[in-house]
């Protein structure tokens, strides 16, 4: 499989993540969609790193750093979601409309 295959898989993953982020009502599902988009970008970075070797393996190093940042992000995001579900008793994001007042 050439680089096109990996890039197309990455594009599909990113599109699915975008759709899920905008279409689902559950806050945890939105976090899962964000993780899918992170993974799509990681896959394209690693693919470019393998096929177009840059100096010092920048693609693989960036992918590792993105993983670390994604772990931090999902930790804080889930803590926020749990806190807001505890006060609102629902995970549906369109029930949070009164936050804007």
């Amino acid at each position, binding site marked *: 499989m050439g680089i096109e295959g990996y890039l197309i898989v990455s594009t599909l993953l990113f599109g699915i993540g975008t759709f899920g982020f905008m279409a689902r009502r559950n806050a945890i599902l939105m976090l899962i969609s964000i993780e899918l988009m992170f993974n799509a970008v990681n896959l394209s970075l690693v693919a470019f790193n393998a096929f177009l070797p840059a100096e010092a393996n920048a693609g693989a190093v960036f992918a590792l750093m993105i*993983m670390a940042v994604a772990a931090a992000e999902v930790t804080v995001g889930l803590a926020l979601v749990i806190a807001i579900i505890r006060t609102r008793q629902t995970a549906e994001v369109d029930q949070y409309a009164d936050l804007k007042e």
Partner: protein
Amino acid sequence: MTLRNIIHSAVAMMICFGSLAGMYALLGAPIVAAAQVLIYLGAISVLILFAIMLTQAGDANLPTPFHRQVPIAAVVALAIIGLVGWAVVQTDWSLAPQAVGAAVEAIAIALFTTYALPFEIISLLILVAIIGAIYLARRPEEDERAN
């Protein structure tokens, strides 16, 4: 993403992460594949499953799991897939060499010499994130008892 039950979605996400780890191994980046298994399959999936079980308030099977902006979301997602996919297909990749793979040793040397400063910043960021998560997830009643 279209599954109604959120636990099914989480399990599908874990399968997706596992197959991505296989693709990293195919691409000759074993260290990235190992990190994928450890961080995503090990840590993030368990975190998300815990969050789902903590917040399962009997609304797992709602009539419509979708927002009313589904058409806009579908159009935007298809536009992204179409544009980027078109760019990928149109580009001539024949100059790209065969996959060479990244040796673990080379990545480690790069990580601790060229990219040492971002590495340290990321460790600080993770520390801050852990402290913030503990603060946010603490129950309010414990506050009142402490005061």
